[in-house]
């Protein structure tokens, strides 16, 4: 069904048939609904949509899922009959609105290897990790940020991009976005010293030899390279 200005106005005045009402509500709730209506400009469409959302939001208590009874009475008195329809829609809308505002559920996998000697393995869809002793990792699959302190070997199963954030010291300054190639081994480590705040190093296995000899030796030993 075409969504037109007339139809929306009709909806506001409570003159819609059930089918028309459903179509408007569907259009309001779903970004992907048929774009059969011709808007003079996309801005106008968005403007109208957000105007409607604002109207809905305005009559809703800030974050309550069901309006407080007192507020409901005031609203009912001040509005004429078809507003009931809007209210119903508001309740419906509030659920959808809160869904819309909340980010998709985040998947954070964290692992703390408290062992003194053994690595811990973590198998994920996109990569496999081997986490060195006394190291910890937290990966947010949505943001692609991997917080870690210590040393980790990463073997991607597909080409991926990860942001490594060293949490041993000054996490905000120790960020490194890296494109990882499928099948290669990468080592991520925190390299700190006496007075330095430390840095995050992510090297492909073949380039590890450039690290200071002692660090190289330890990593090769630890990850059995």
């Amino acid at each position, binding site marked *: 069904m075409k969504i037109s200005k007339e139809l929306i106005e009709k909806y506001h005045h409570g003159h819609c048939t059930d089918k028309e009402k459903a179509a408007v509500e569907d259009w309001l709730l779903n970004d992907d609904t048929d774009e059969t209506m011709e808007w003079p400009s996309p801005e106008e469409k968005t403007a109208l949509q957000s105007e409607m959302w604002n109207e809905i939001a305005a009559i809703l208590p800030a974050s309550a899922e069901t309006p407080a009874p007192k507020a409901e009475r005031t609203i009912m008195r001040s509005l004429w009959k078809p507003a009931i329809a809007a209210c119903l829609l508001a309740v419906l809308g509030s659920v959808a609105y809160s869904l819309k505002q909340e980010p998709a559920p985040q998947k954070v996998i964290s692992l703390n290897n408290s062992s003194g000697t053994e690595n811990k*393995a973590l198998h994920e869809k996109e990569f496999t990790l081997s986490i*060195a002793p006394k190291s910890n990792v937290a990966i947010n699959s949505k943001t692609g940020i991997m917080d870690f302190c210590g*040393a980790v070997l990463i073997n991607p199963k597909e080409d991926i991009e990860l942001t490594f954030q060293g949490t041993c010291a000054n996490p905000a300054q120790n960020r490194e976005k890296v494109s990882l190639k499928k099948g290669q081994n990468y080592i991520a480590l925190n390299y*700190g010293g006496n007075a330095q705040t*430390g840095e995050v*190093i*992510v090297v492909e296995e073949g380039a590890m030899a*450039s690290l*200071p*000899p002692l660090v190289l030796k330890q990593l090769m030993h630890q990850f059995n390279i």
Partner: protein
Amino acid sequence: MIHRYRGLIHFVAFALLSVVLLPGCREQSGEQEHIAQKKYSIYAMMKNGKEYILQTDSLASGEINPEKSGARVVPAPLYYELIVRDGRYYSIDRRKSAFVRYKIANGEFVRDTAIAITGFSSVENYNWLSRDSLMILGYDEDARKVRYVKIDVRNLSISQGIVPVPAPFGNYNWLSIGFSQFLENKLYIGYCYHTYTLDNYTTGDTIYTAILDYPQLRPQKTLKDTRSVYPGGVNTRQSHSFVTENGDFYFIACPGIALGNYPEKPTGIFRIRKSSEEIDSEYFFNISASAINNHGYGFWYIGNGKAIVRTERKGLYTGMKDHYKVPHFDFYLVDLEKQTTSRLPLPLDKGTSRQCVLVENGTVYITVNSGNEGCYVWLLNPGTGALKKGLKFSDDTEYILRLERLNDQ
């Protein structure tokens, strides 16, 4: 993942070794034949990550394509671990604690044979005692004992033992041997201690030099100095020390992030005068405080009291994460006595540590991996200071990692 396939990897390694070693044994009954008698050996890494060993007679001109004329290095990266002499290549196998000899067969650089040695995880330092006798210093995986192994490379017979360098103590849990030098029948070993965890690494405040009698290896004296830290470095990676014509010994201390990771200390050159058995307290060539104003690592003698120092350039790299891949290295000519420096007008070089200077018959060969001016061997005439381009590497070359003499004339 690696662990899961360990069995398989071991089987494949065993199968490969069998294939490689068995024909090797048969060959030994016949006449030992060197594949090539070229003068120079070069180790190169291509832009696609593949590594090649090249052998050539001339460095002064021409062009070379490592992929076409080199032998593909089949084992894991070896570029910092090789010892090269008389047409042969050697290293230590860390996993198996073995001394390994390599060969070039069917266009590939592969293992030839190996002999087990006790408690070695890597080469810390090596010296040729004679043309056929090699002495390697190292330690096992927990760095509690420093060891030596002497190898007769003709038949790979070995003798081995402990070197009386004290184990890490107090907060120190690791050590590095930075130089090893025979001076008047005594062995001088420079070393330092480290505190190492997986997220922190630094070097202790003191440079130690053990003087041992030889061949008994009994401690005679231990020298201490705190003007810098991290004496020398692993000498398969690059040169950090030398003896001049008059018998004075010089070494460089490298506190920069790529070695000692104690950058508050200056990079500096120390001296042990001939027969003095002391680090010259009057002499300290502070590289960081000179016009160079940066940390340096490699240190090569070119004769007549002059040396080359390869120094990093702060501001061009951000840390260890890009230290090896950004062109930021300068080569400085230094006068050891006058303590003067002059920059060689070469393109900025990349690669954190490289065996990149070779001095022969009055010519200094310097390999440079520039950002966009290609990879070349450069020729320096130390007398006139003239520099010119020599052997060119094909454009798909990323790094020239080693250059060394392979065979004498």
